[in-house]
């Protein structure tokens, strides 16, 4: 298992990001990743990626700006539509 760290972002910085985090962790485990997650709100992303290393930013709210870390639209994890695409995007961003 490879350890990875995900930053999950939603408007409240808690509820929908936790839902996505939970599901991404499960999905990534099946692909050999042991993911830890941190949940935050869009305004805190810049500061978080500056102070901590993340492998991926998974967003369910628009997060403006470019970061050194790949950013993935993860809304599909909540709706179940395009879930496979989100996982594929994540795996690609994680380099597998």
């Amino acid at each position, binding site marked *: 298992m490879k350890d990875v760290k995900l930053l999950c972002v939603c408007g409240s910085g808690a*509820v*929908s990001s936790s839902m996505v985090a939970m599901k991404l962790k499960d999905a990534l485990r099946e692909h050999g990743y042991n993911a830890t997650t941190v949940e935050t709100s869009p305004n805190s992303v810049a500061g978080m990626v500056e102070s901590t290393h993340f492998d991926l930013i998974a967003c*369910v709210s*628009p997060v403006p700006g470019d970061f050194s870390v790949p950013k993935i639209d993860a809304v599909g994890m909540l*709706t179940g539509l395009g*879930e496979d695409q989100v996982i594929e995007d994540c795996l690609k961003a994680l380099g597998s």
Partner: protein
Amino acid sequence: MAKAIYDDLVFYDFEAADASELIRKLGAEFERKGFVKDTYVDAVAARELEYPTGLQLDGFAVAMPHTSGVHVNTPAIGVARLKHPVTFGHMGDPEHLVEAELIFMMAILDPDDQIEWLRSVMKVFTNKEMMSELCFANNREELLEAVKKNIGVETVDA
């Protein structure tokens, strides 16, 4: 930790002209029953404007208005089947509007403590059969039964 679903937070044929009115009316029920603080409704309404919570599921649209735990007293999930669909912006894509038929209003105190609730709600979102049971309920009793069956998680204090 108490149960997620309370009978008196399940509504059938709930009516509102728009998302803002819906949040105020539904939020007022949470407030009146003591589940949330008097700051909750404003916080949810403000969040909805900035970061909408509509979701287009497979065949159904829903919305899950919520805010952070500082506005919550007792965590609970309210479910409202709307008489007429209400327009919400889509989560992650505010320009994309959806006609929500079913509302899951969340009063979450601590997502880590209520993680099983969130898991149940997500399971319902992604399960067309469960969503059908909720959306096609013919009356409040059927809705309540479907809600309890599909998301009525109860956990006991460890």
